C-alpha cells in the first residue's frame, strides 16, 4: 500500500435490498480488457523467459559491456560493467516483482478481509481491539515498517513477502470493516440472523459478497504499491540480492553507469510504470464492472 487512499474506493455504499450480485454487474469496459491484456502479456513473457531469450540473466560477457539497445544479439543491450543481457534480466527479474504484486497482495486481502469482517460484524470490544491494532500499523510509514522488518529478518525476497504480509492487511481490514458496518443492519442480514443462521454463515453468504468488491478494487492500487515497494527494497539492496535480477536492483546497479549507459536504469523503470498503468486500468475497469452506479 503506497497511499492510504480512501478515494480509490468509489461508491462506498452497499447495495440495497433485493438486488442479486449478478443483476447489478456493469459492463466490461476497455480499460479492463487493455489492462488485463498488458499484464497477461508481461506475465507470460516473464514466465516463459527461457523461450524468449537464450541468455542466462546472470551470465557475464566481460568483452561486451554496455552494448546499446538493438545491438546484434542483444535487443535491449547489455549492462555495464558485466555485459549481462538486459532483456534476460528484465524478464527473469520481472518474476520477482510480479510475484510480490500478486502474492503479496493476495495474502493481505484474505487476512484483512477476515479481520475486517470479524471487527465489523461482532463490534464491541473485538472491534475496538482490532481497530486500535490497525491504528498502530497506520502510524508507521508503510515503507519504514517493512524496511525495519526486512532488516530484522534479513534481506531476501522471501522476507519482503513476509514483511508485506505482516503489515499490508490493515488497509483491507479497515475497508471491509466499514462496509460490514453498513451492511449489517440491512434487512436480509437481520432476517438471516432471525432464522438462526450461524455467524460464520451470515458473514460468508450474506455480508462477504456485498463488501468484497471494495477490497478487490483497492487491491489493484495496493498491487502497484507492493511492486513499487519490492523495487524500492531491491534498489536499496534489501530485497532480491545481486546477481539475481530484479527491476529495482537493476535500476540501482545501472545508476552508476547512467551517464554512458542510460538504458540500463531506464528500461526496468519503464517496465514498472507499464505494470502500474496496467493495474490502474484494471482497477478502473473493475470499478465500472463491480459498481456500475458509482
Amino acid at each position, binding site marked *: 500500500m503506497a497511499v492510504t487512499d480512501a478515494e480509490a474506493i468509489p461508491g462506498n455504499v452497499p447495495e440495497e435490498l433485493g438486488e442479486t450480485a449478478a443483476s447489478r454487474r456493469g459492463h466490461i469496459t476497455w480499460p479492463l480488457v487493455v489492462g488485463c491484456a498488458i499484464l497477461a502479456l508481461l506475465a507470460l513473457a516473464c514466465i516463459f523467459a527461457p523461450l524468449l531469450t537464450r541468455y542466462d540473466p546472470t551470465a557475464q560477457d566481460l568483452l561486451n559491456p554496455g552494448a546499446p539497445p538493438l545491438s546484434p544479439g542483444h535487443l535491449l543491450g547489455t549492462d555495464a560493467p558485466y555485459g549481462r543481457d538486459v532483456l534476460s534480466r528484465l524478464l527473469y527479474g520481472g518474476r520477482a516483482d510480479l510475484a510480490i504484486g500478486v502474492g503479496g497482495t493476495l495474502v493481505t486481502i484474505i487476512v484483512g478481509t477476515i479481520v475486517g469482517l470479524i471487527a465489523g460484524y461482532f463490534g464491541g470490544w473485538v472491534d475496538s481491539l482490532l481497530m486500535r491494532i490497525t*491504528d498502530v500499523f497506520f502510524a*508507521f510509514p508503510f*515503507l519504514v515498517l517493512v524496511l525495519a522488518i526486512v532488516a530484522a529478518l534479513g534481506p531476501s525476497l522471501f522476507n519482503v513477502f513476509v514483511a508485506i504480509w505482516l503489515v499490508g492487511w490493515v488497509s483491507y481490514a479497515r475497508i471491509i470493516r466499514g462496509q460490514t458496518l453498513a451492511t449489517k443492519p440491512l434487512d436480509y442480514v437481520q432476517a438471516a440472523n432471525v432464522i438462526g443462521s450461524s455467524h460464520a454463515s451470515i458473514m460468508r453468504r450474506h455480508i462477504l459478497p456485498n463488501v468484497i468488491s471494495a477490497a478487490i478494487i483497492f487491491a489493484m*492500487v495496493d498491487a502497484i504499491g507492493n511492486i513499487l515497494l519490492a523495487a524500492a527494497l531491491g534498489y536499496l539492496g534489501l530485497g532480491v540480492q545481486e546477481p539475481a535480477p530484479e527491476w529495482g536492483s537493476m535500476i540501482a546497479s545501472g545508476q552508476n553507469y547512467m551517464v554512458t549507459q542510460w538504458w540500463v536504469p531506464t528500461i526496468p523503470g519503464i517496465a*514498472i510504470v507499464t505494470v502500474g498503468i496496467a*493495474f490502474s486500468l484494471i482497477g478502473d475497469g473493475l470499478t465500472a464492472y463491480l459498481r456500475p452506479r458509482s
Partner: protein
Amino acid sequence: MGGFSYLGRRILQSIPVLIGISLVSFFLIHLIPGDPVQAMLGNHYTPKAAAALRHSLGLDTPLPNQYLIFMRNLLHGSLGQSVYYQQPVTQVIMDRIEPTAWLVLYGSILAVVIAFPLGVLAALRPDGILDQIIRALFVTTLAMPSFWLGIILILFLSVDAQLFPVSGFGDTFTDHLRSLFLPSLTVAVGFGAVLIRSMRNSVIETMQQDYTRTARAKGLSFRVVLLRHVLRNALLPVITVFSVNIAFLLGSTVIIENVFAIGGVGQLLVSSILQRDYPIVQGITLLLAVLVVTLNFLTDILYALIDPRISYG
C-alpha cells in the same frame, strides 16, 4: 469549553496508539532470527563484547522486564546506544535531522504549488481535455518508482544541463534550496499527484453547492466566485488528505534521501540496516511513527479550528 473536551478526547485517543507503537518497535529486535547480539556484532563478536552489548540492550532479563526497561528509557528520552557509532541513538538521529526536515517541508511546499493549480484546472471542465491529461499524468506518476524518477531528473537536469548538484545537502541556506530542489521535486511529484486528485474532486463538489450558484447568480465574476467561495471551501478536504498521507510522505523521503545522498535520517536508516545497527533502526522507526501521530493530531486540530461546522462536543 467544547474545544477543550475535543482536544482532551483526541489526546486520549492517541495514547493506546503510542503504546502500540512502542510495542511494535520493541518487538522488532526480537524478530531477528537467532541471537540479535551475534547478528549486530558480526565479525567483532567476542564473548565479552557480546555480554556487554546484551546487558546494555537489556537482553539478559526476561521479556516483560525488557519492555519495562525499554519504556523507562523511552520516557527518559533515551533510545539506547548505537552499536556502530558508539553514541546515543537520539544524538546520532538529531545530527542528521536537518536535511530530512528540509526535504519534508520543501517537498510538501512544492507538492502544494504543483497540485493546486493543476487540481483547479482539472476541475474547471470535468472530463475535458485538460482533466483527461492531468488524470493520465496522475496514473503514470502513481505507478512510477520515485527513486527512478529521481535518477532520471539527475540525468537530465544535473548531469546534462548542470542546473543542480547531483547529490548532497550544501552548506548555506541558498545551497540547501538549490541542492534539495531535485529531491524535493521528486517527493512532490508523488505526493502532489494524490493532492491533485483530492483538490479536483473537492473543487468540483464545491462548485455544485448552492452558495456557489447563488454567488454566480447575483452577478459576481467567475474569478471572484472561484477565489472567494470555491477555493476557500475546497481547501478543507485537502487538509484531511494531506494528514492521511503524512506517513506516505515520510516513507517516500526515506528512498529519495538515498538517491540524492543528502545525509539525513532516511539515509541513516538504510545504512544502519546494512550495518545491522538495530538500536538505530528501532529508534528511527519509532520516532517516525510518533511524528506521524503528532502531525495527524495537529492537522486534526487545525481542521477543527478552520472549519466552524465541526462540532467539538
